[in-house]
């Protein structure tokens, strides 16, 4: 915001209205790239029809941005030689998260702001290997390289490759898993390097599920909140104790090297997995991470020519690479898209309100996220002395105007409640938070934001609406001290 020429602090949850207004202007004023659309996109006519109702004047009040500003931004985006879209979890963590992304894709496609240097769509992802893990098939419905498990041909290939029959059904995503435990469909779980007791929405429900499991194995480097529910904890190794690759949000595969010896009985993650596999009779044999990587890369076209040997020598390789020893293609989609017809698909979107909007009882909007100092659930960073000194305790942030309006004072302990639960946190004044909103980082286990969040999922992306639910904020209810 501080550096923006066109800051747009829109009303939370109105992304689709605002983005469709930008598309409306681009189409109305003929700022779209006819030639690019004809060659590379499908679905433009339906989009044209859909956004007719989304004139900036019509949606200005909905999204809280003046019509002139919307028109300006649309013009600048469409007519600049190079425009690029960056976004964070504020776009995806909504029940309409997929629609938000569809709007952004449509913006890039109709203006041809994609497939060239300095253009495109760039989600800023949150984990150092979230790209690599997804690419490798750590998605419940995909094999490596996003190949669907429910496709018979693909499954056949993988069965041949691994020499054993594979489950034909797609797996469940995070929140679905917790529901399935409550529904007695899942009774055992093996969690590695994740802390769902802190990161899942509707924490009481999620922890209830973890507690209900017949058997829970957690493999981690610290005794996290999830470990509290575990029957067995396997001591894993920290990043500074292990060798392997991380793929960042820029498709750069980079090598991480061990600097320290693991403490006590801690083992390499891959060794623990292999050991478990062998005890259930799978007879796996690997010499080391390099061999695992090479097997993985052999079933991933995206990692063609991204060899273990080269990674060790060069430290970083951007995929895709076209030939042995070649450079990575930093810009992709230069010549169409990897779809059956080679075109980028435009999907028009409708307005869909957030699942739980404010009402009389819960008049404010709660949004959650991270702090600079604490990464994700704080499992690692809250154990750092420096970071603990910088951000030691659970906070909830509101702007000064809202704090005054509610008769509160920055620094006091407040109570934030939603339909899922109540937490206490120290009130912080932060001008970056919009009116009628409260922001709570989800890293503090003494003020766990996710006890409050709404587990409602985006129907397509299956991501929970972490960024929006109705909440109530007030001074902490004073209890009389016992005599």
């Amino acid at each position, binding site marked *: 915001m501080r550096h923006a020429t066109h800051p747009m602090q829109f009303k939370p949850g109105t992304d689709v209205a605002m983005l469709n207004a930008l598309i409306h202007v681009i189409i109305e004023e003929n700022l779209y790239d006819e030639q690019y659309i004809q060659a590379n996109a499908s679905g433009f006519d339906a989009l044209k029809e859909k956004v007719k109702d989304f004139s900036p004047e019509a949606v200005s009040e909905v999204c809280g941005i003046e019509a002139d500003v919307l028109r300006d931004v649309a013009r600048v985006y469409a007519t600049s030689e190079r425009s690029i879209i960056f976004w964070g979890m504020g776009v995806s963590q909504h029940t309409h998260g997929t629609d938000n992304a569809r709007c952004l894709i449509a913006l890039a496609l109709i203006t041809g702001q994609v497939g060239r240097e300095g253009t495109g769509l760039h989600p800023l992802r949150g*984990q150092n290997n979230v790209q690599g893990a997804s690419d490798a098939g750590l998605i419940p419905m995909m094999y490596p390289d996003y190949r669907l498990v429910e496709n018979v041909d693909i499954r056949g290939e993988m069965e041949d490759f691994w020499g054993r029959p594979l489950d034909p059904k797609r797996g469940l995503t995070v929140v679905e898993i917790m529901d399935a435990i409550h529904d007695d469909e899942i009774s055992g779980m093996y969690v590695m390097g994740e802390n769902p007791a802190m990161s899942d929405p509707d924490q009481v429900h999620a922890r209830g599920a973890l507690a209900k499991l017949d058997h829970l194995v957690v493999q981690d480097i610290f005794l996290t909140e999830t470990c509290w529910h575990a029957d067995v904890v396997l001591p894993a190794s920290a990043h500074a104790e292990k060798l392997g690759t991380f793929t960042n949000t820029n498709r750069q595969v980079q090598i991480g090297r061990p600097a320290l010896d693991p403490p006590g009985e801690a083992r390499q993650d891959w060794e623990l997995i292999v050991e478990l596999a062998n005890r259930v009779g799978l007879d796996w044999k690997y010499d080391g991470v390099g061999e695992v990587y090479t097997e993985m890369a052999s079933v991933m076209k995206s990692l063609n020519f991204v060899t273990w040997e080269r990674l060790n020598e060069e*430290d970083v390789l951007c995929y895709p690479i076209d030939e042995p020893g070649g450079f990575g293609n930093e810009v992709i989609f230069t010549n169409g898209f990897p779809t059956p017809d080679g075109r980028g698909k435009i999907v028009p979107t409708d307005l869909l309100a957030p699942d739980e909007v404010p009402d009389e009882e819960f008049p404010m909007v709660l949004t959650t996220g991270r702090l600079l100092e604490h990464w994700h659930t704080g499992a690692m960073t809250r154990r750092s*002395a420096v970071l603990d000194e910088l951000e030691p305790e659970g906070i909830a942030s509101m702007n000064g105007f809202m704090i005054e309006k509610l008769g509160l004072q920055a620094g006091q302990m407040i109570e934030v409640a939603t339909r899922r639960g109540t937490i206490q946190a120290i009130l912080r004044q932060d001008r970056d938070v919009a009116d009628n909103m409260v922001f709570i980082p989800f890293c503090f286990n003494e003020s766990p934001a996710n006890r409050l969040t709404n587990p409602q999922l985006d129907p397509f992306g299956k991501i929970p609406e972490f960024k929006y639910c109705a909440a109530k904020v007030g001074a902490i209810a004073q209890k009389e001290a016992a005599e």
Partner: protein
Amino acid sequence: MTDQIKFTLDGKTVTASKDETIWEVAKREGTRIPHLCHLDKPGYRSDGNCRACMVEIEGERVLAASCVRNVTEGLVVKTETDRADKSRKMVFEMLAADMRPREESPDDQSDFWLWSESMGITGSDRFESKFDAGQHVEFDISNPAIAVNMDACIACNACVRACREVQVNDVIGMGERGSHSVPVFDLADPMGNSTCVTCGECVQACPTGALYEKTLMDDSNKKREIKEFDKVVDSVCPFCGVGCQTTMAVKDNKIVQVDGRNGPANENRLCVKVALAMITP
């Protein structure tokens, strides 16, 4: 290519681009010119403050700061004349005169002391300065990870560029005037009370150790204690999706220092989580 020019560097004819400085071309040609305020790292603008990189140019009355002087057609540059050498040495000597002796300095292996050593300067035995040091805070350990020892500061402005131009945090600026010029945090607040986000960029930029990691220092936070590492390992940050490349320095199976590497995603930059917090206390 029209922007290519030819000039003479230490008697040798060299082809270079008009956009290059004498310092950059000299480096490419294998000549190391001393430098302090000029950081040979991506994102750093040369500022020509410290005068450690002076060279002689034929036909010019005064010496030129090679880090900010662009090459031009026909320029005759001499980096190794007595006059240039003496001038550079004098800069180091005068700066050393304002500092604690090397063995008592915050970082005795800083660029400043390594360059000084290469010139045979071990400190100063001159009389104490008759000028007062100004009103600024000399010693500030209010930040949990970074110690500020302003008596080692040479006001070279590298930390200001680090904070303002490289990381765009806008916390550090130059305060006071003239010989009292000194970097300050916000409105001369203690570092720990300022809006500093402890990214560590200024520590990476400082050529003297005036801004330095507490983990490498003794309990007084005035002197470097850990002087050598068992090993230095190139790796990647474990946290967010940016993928910053790091170098971890290890002593006794503990990480004691993390610096950014020139990776494609971070160009040496880091944030507090990995730069200063991965370190084992």
